[in-house]
């Protein structure tokens, strides 16, 4: 999307034009639902986060200064909303208590990812919530371990440790376990 297009879309949304709001939602919601889905364990939770996230987007659209990409700004909101959801939701709270585990050896494996996007997303979602969160934040969103530490209230060392354990587990699964055995059902309940 061109920067100018997003500027006009935002401007119309701020004027309260319903079509523009719907347009913005339709433009970004499929990508953002994929983001939210990756942080949760089911589609209902992902859609709840998407809903909360878009309400925040529309309520705070005046804060978007047009300096970066609109998509990146919305994505950041979705990631933060996902983290809050995980922390607030009893279902995920326990898994978000990160244990400190010393980082012994870091795998140097750098395998080819043969899975398609859906399959890979499904596999990431099978990780324990803590691993899943740190893996998404680092590998997909590109946050540094220092930033992740600040976001999750953990040390960067804990983040690093969690990440490499998640990475190793994922590579192991990709190597040894077929997707059918994992049994993740992609789709809504």
């Amino acid at each position, binding site marked *: 999307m061109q920067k100018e297009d997003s500027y006009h879309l935002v401007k119309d949304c701020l004027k309260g034009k319903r079509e523009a*709001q*719907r347009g913005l*939602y339709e433009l970004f*919601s*499929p*990508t953002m*639902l*994929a983001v939210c*889905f*990756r942080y949760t364990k089911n589609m209902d939770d*992902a*859609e709840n986060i*998407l*809903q909360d996230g*878009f*309400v925040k987007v*529309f*309520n705070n659209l005046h804060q978007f200064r047009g300096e970066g990409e609109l998509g990146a700004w919305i994505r*950041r*909101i979705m990631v*933060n909303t996902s983290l*809050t959801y995980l*922390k*607030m939701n009893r279902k995920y*709270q326990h898994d978000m*208590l*990160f*244990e*400190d585990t*010393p*980082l012994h050896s870091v795998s140097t*494996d*750098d395998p*080819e*990812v043969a*899975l*398609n*996007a859906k399959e*890979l*997303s499904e596999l990431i979602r099978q990780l324990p919530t803590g691993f899943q969160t740190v893996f998404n934040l*680092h*590998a*997909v969103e590109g*946050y*540094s371990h*220092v930033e992740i*530490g*600040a*976001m*999750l*209230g*953990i*040390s*960067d*060392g*804990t983040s*690093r*440790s969690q990440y490499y354990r998640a*990475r190793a587990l994922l*590579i192991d699964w990709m190597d040894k376990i077929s997707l059918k055995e994992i049994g993740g059902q992609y789709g809504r309940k």
Partner: protein
Amino acid sequence: MDENKFEKQVRQKMDELKIQPAESVWENVEKRIQKKDPRKRFVWLFAALFLGLMVGGFYLSVQNKHSANPNPDTQNIIDGNDVSSPGAKNDTKNSVREEGKKSTIDLAKNNGNIVKGNQDKLKESSKNNPAPRLIVMSKNYQYKKIIETESNDIIAALDDGETLKLSNGKSVNSTGVLENTLPAKELNIGQPAKNFEDSSLNILIEKRTEPEIVSNKSPTEVLKKSSKKWLLGFNFSVGKTQLGAGLLGIGGEKSLADMSLNSPGNSGGPITNPPVYKDPTPRNDLALIVGVSAQKKISKNTSLVLGINYKYFSTLNDVGSWLGYGNYYSNQFVTSSQSFLVHRNNFHFLEAPVLFKIETRQNKKLHLNVVVGAGLSRLLSSNSLQYQQGMFFNDNSFFNKTQIALEGGVSAILFSKKSYPVSIGPYVNYGLNNLTGKGLYGGKHLGFIGIRTEVFFKNKK
């Protein structure tokens, strides 16, 4: 980050992924963004109430200025209407006779009672008492201003154009001008008239253009009479927020683990940049209360005060780096080059107080009021931060939005003789219920300690 082939592929594949959400998601989003913010509704309601009370107060004030009804309870006031009434004609005590549009009064008076008499009696009375004064004014302007009067003064309230004929044959009209005797300019406004033939009679001319209240009662007594009706006023308090579990926010210190909604993550393992944490406990800061109120006398020295207040409380938190959206901050800074930010947690309340004002030291120079009562308030909005796992964030769903507070104070009344007396003194407000059950404000009560100023518009009759 480590830019291995693996991470690159993962990111690339994840960026490709798109999932179409259910239609119900948009419907819910649309409903929520269309829904009018209830906080805005409260703000508008408060603004409308405030405006309404101010307009009402102004209207009452203007009405009082033009009120033409004298107080029939005041014994030493001669009412032009009364003197022309048939009852008044035959009332020997009132000593007023009607002569067409003119009235004649025998100026003999004893202890505030107008007695039919003659100059001898008046002179006899004058030996023991200060010379009685006749205070003449237009009905339209009486009762608006307190003037000092002696107990034996006679106050005449006349309609415009009405004339009071004195026993010495002279007449006086509602402007206080002695007709055919002295030109108006020779009369000293506010001073006993000089050069009047009957020296035992002083005539006090009240300046017509000034609103006035005439009574021989003390200001407090005048206020008591006027307080039979609702008096409108406004108040302003400034002080400090008192956040705590005990009375007036004392006590209730909690550990970091208690304050967090979850235990913060431990920091073990190989730490390359050891984070520096700050205590997330909020610090007390500014508090304000501003409102409008109406008071009514319910007993000799007690008034009921009802009103509507806007209450503002604030606390401060030291927060670390901003995490990119809304009120998300860490409570650490990760390099020595960064410093903590100070975040002000604002709490906006709308309160309906019910207070009892007890007047003390009524006969002393310095009048004191003791105010006690309770208030029901509603949290309109807050940007206050909660704390969890090393992260600050805003979530008002934790708060008990309806609060009950006890409040009270002592105030001294300044300018009690003026139309707008001001009371000022220390004031406390203490929330009876917890602000929240958990988190940073878990089990804590909001309180206020400061100085309260209150002004009431006297509604005198």
